[in-house]
C-alpha cells in the first residue's frame, strides 16, 4: 500500500443515493430520494418520525435492501452488498455495546472480525479509546459506564477500523441535554480530525443545524429541501420546511398582482407591496398565498423599511436572552415576536396593543394556504 492510498483510506468517501425507493406493502417509506454526498461532508437527515430518514440510513448500512434505486460509495455500487462487507462505521441510538464483553473487547471487536492478532487489535482499541478521551476504561464492563461514556465507546468502536463513512442513527437522543451538547462537539471534532463522511439521522432540528454541513429535510419519504443550515433557515423553499425548521409566523393572503413587485391583500383588507424576491415559489394573481416571517425579525414599534402591523398581546414570556411576545393580528391570526435585550419592555402587559415593523427583506411568500 502506498502513501497516497493510505491517506485516502483515512479520509471520507463520497456517497450517491439515486432514486431510492423502499415500499413496505402499500406504504412507501422512501419515495424517490436522491442525495449526493461529497467526500468528507457531514450531512444530517432531518424529519419527523415516519419521514423515511431511518429507512434511508438502514439502506446505506445494508440492513434494508431498497425496492428500487441505488447506493454508491465512491464509485462502487453497494446497494445489495451485505452490511459486513460495506466497511462502514455506525453508531446506534442505544449504544449497542455488547454487554458480555469488556470495553476494550467491544472496541476491538471489528478488528477481531478483520483477523487482526490480539496484541495489535488491543493496541489500536486503546488508541481509539484515547481519541474519545476514555483511555484506561478498557477493562470495565459497558454497564459500569454512564450513557455518555457508553456512546463515546460506541463512537470509538465505529472508527477504530478507519471506515470512510460514519452512519449515526439518532446517537444523542438517549442522552440528557448537557451531555448531548458535549457529544455534539465531540462528534464535530472527530469529524474534523478524521475527515470522515458522516450521515447523521436526527429529529432534533437544532442538532442538525449546529452540526451538519448540509441538512436534508424529509417528509413522507420525500426530500423537502436539502442545503446548508443558513439556506434552510433563511429561505426555506416550501411551506413544510418553513414550518418545520425553527419558529415561523404565517399569515394567509390573497395575491393581487405580480410584476416587479408582488401585491398581496391581508386578511384585514390592507394591501402590501412586496419585492418580487419575497416570492419563494411562483405565485399568480388571484390565488391564495402564505406570507411567512420569523419571530426574531419583527421589530417593536412603527419604523421605516417595512410594513407595520398591530398586535393585541396575549402573553409576554421572559426567555432569558430574548422576550417572547405572543399576540393576535386584527383577523385573529397568532403572531409571535422575539425581541432581544428586552429589559426596557417591562411596561408591556397582556391586553396591550403593540405595533411591530416587518422588514421587507424578512418576508417570504409561498403558494397555497396553510391547512
Amino acid at each position, binding site marked *: 500500500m502506498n502513501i497516497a492510498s493510505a491517506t485516502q483510506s483515512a479520509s471520507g468517501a463520497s456517497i450517491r443515493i439515486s432514486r431510492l425507493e423502499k415500499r413496505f406493502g402499500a406504504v412507501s417509506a422512501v419515495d424517490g430520494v436522491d442525495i449526493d454526498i461529497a467526500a468528507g461532508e457531514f450531512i444530517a437527515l432531518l424529519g419527523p418520525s415516519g419521514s423515511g430518514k431511518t429507512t434511508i440510513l438502514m439502506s446505506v*448500512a*445494508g*440492513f434494508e435492501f431498497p425496492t428500487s434505486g441505488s447506493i454508491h460509495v465512491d464509485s462502487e455500487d453497494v446497494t445489495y452488498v*451485505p*452490511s*459486513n462487507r*460495506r*466497511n*462502514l*462505521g*455506525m453508531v*446506534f*441510538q*442505544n449504544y*449497542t*455495546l*455488547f*454487554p*458480555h464483553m469488556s470495553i476494550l473487547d467491544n472496541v476491538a*471487536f*471489528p478488528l*477481531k*472480525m*478483520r483477523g487482526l492478532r490480539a496484541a495489535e487489535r488491543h493496541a489500536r482499541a486503546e488508541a481509539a479509546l484515547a481519541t474519545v478521551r476514555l483511555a484506561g476504561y478498557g477493562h470495565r*464492563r*459497558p*454497564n459500569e459506564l454512564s450513557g455518555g461514556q457508553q456512546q463515546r465507546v460506541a463512537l470509538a*468502536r*465505529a472508527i477504530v*477500523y478507519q471506515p470512510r463513512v460514519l*452512519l449515526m442513527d439518532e446517537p444523542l437522543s438517549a442522552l440528557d441535554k448537557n451531555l448531548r451538547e458535549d457529544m455534539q462537539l465531540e462528534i464535530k471534532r472527530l469529524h474534523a480530525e478524521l475527515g470522515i463522511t458522516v450521515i447523521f439521522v436526527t429529529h432534533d432540528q437544532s442538532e442538525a443545524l449546529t452540526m451538519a454541513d448540509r441538512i436534508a429535510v424529509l417528509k413522507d419519504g420525500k426530500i423537502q429541501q436539502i442545503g446548508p443550515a443558513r439556506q434552510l433557515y433563511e429561505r426555506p423553499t416550501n411551506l413544510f420546511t418553513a414550518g418545520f425548521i425553527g419558529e415561523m409566523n404565517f399569515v394567509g393572503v390573497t395575491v393581487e398582482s405580480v410584476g416587479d413587485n408582488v401585491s398581496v391583500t391581508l386578511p384585514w383588507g390592507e394591501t402590501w407591496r412586496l419585492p418580487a424576491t419575497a416570492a419563494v415559489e411562483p405565485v399568480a394573481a388571484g390565488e391564495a398565498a402564505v406570507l411567512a416571517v420569523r419571530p426574531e425579525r419583527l421589530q417593536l414599534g412603527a419604523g421605516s423599511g417595512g410594513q407595520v402591523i398591530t398586535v393585541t398581546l396575549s402573553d409576554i414570556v421572559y426567555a432569558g436572552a430574548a422576550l417572547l411576545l405572543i399576540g393576535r393580528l386584527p383577523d385573529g391570526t397568532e403572531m409571535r415576536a422575539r425581541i432581544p435585550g428586552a429589559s426596557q419592555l417591562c411596561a408591556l402587559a397582556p391586553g396591550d396593543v403593540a405595533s411591530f415593523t416587518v422588514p421587507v427583506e424578512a418576508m417570504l411568500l409561498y403558494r397555497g394556504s396553510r391547512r
Partner: protein
Amino acid sequence: MTEARRSHFWHSDGRRLSGLSTLLLLLPFFAIIAFVFVYPILQLLVISILEPHPTLENYARVVENPVHMRVLMRTLWTATLVTALSVVLGFPVAYYMSRAKGTVAALVAVCVILPLWSSVLVRTAAWSFLFQRNGLINSALMALGLTSQPFKLLYTQSAVVIAMTHVLLPFMILPIYGALRSIPDDYGRAAAVLGATRLRTFLEVILPLSLPGVVSGSLLVFLTALGFFITPALLGSPQEMMISTLVSKQIREVLDWPFAAALVGVLTVFVTLLAIIFSKTLRFDRLMGNAS
C-alpha cells in the same frame, strides 16, 4: 434507584401496602412451599438418619451396593443425555421462534406449548404405541426394507431417553426463547456493520447472550429428568431402573422408608452440588448486565 428496585405491593390508589398486608399476601404461597416441599424433604432426611436408630447405615447401603450406585449413575447419565439432546434440538427451535413473525411465530409457539396441555402420561403412552414390536416405527422400517426383523424399542433405555427428551423439550425451548427475545435487534445489526459474518455474529454475540436461557433451561430439564417417574416406569426396562422407580419400589413394595429416604438424600446432595457449581461458574448478572 435502590428504592425502585425494592419490590413492594401497592394499593390501586398508589399507596404502598403495609408490611403486614404484604406478609398476608405472600403467606399462602410460602405456606404451601413449606408444607408440601420443605417439610416432607426435611422429614425424609430425618428418617434417613434416625431410623431404625440414629445411624448412617442407610447411606452406607446406598453407596456400598454397586446395584444402587449403578441406578444412581444411570439416572444422572440419562438426565445428562436428555438435557444435552434438548439443548441440541431446542436451541434451533427457540432461535427460529425468536426470529419468526406473525402467523408463523404463532404456529411454532402453539406447536411448542400445546403438548404441555396434555398430561405426561398421555405423551408417554403415545410413545409406547409408536415403539411397540408392530408399532408405527417398526412397521415403517420394515415396509421400507431397512430391516427384516422388528427392533426391540419398547422397554429400552433409548426409548426412555427419546420420550423424556420429547416431554421435557418445551422446558428447554421457552427459557432459551426468552433469552433470545431479550437481545435487541440492534446487537445483530451492530455486529454485522462492524464486519461480522452471520456465523460470527451468532457465535460472538447471540450465543453468549443467550447462555443464561440455555443454563436455566438445562437446569429445569436436568432436575426434572432426575426425578422423572412415569416415562421410565412405562417405557424403560426393569433391568435398567432409574432412581425414582427404585425409590417408589422401596416405599411401596419393600416398605423400607429409611432406605428410600437415604436414596433421596444422596440425590439431593448431588442436585445441590450441581446447583452451586452452576451458579458459581456462570455469572449471569454480568452476562445480562446491560441490555437496555
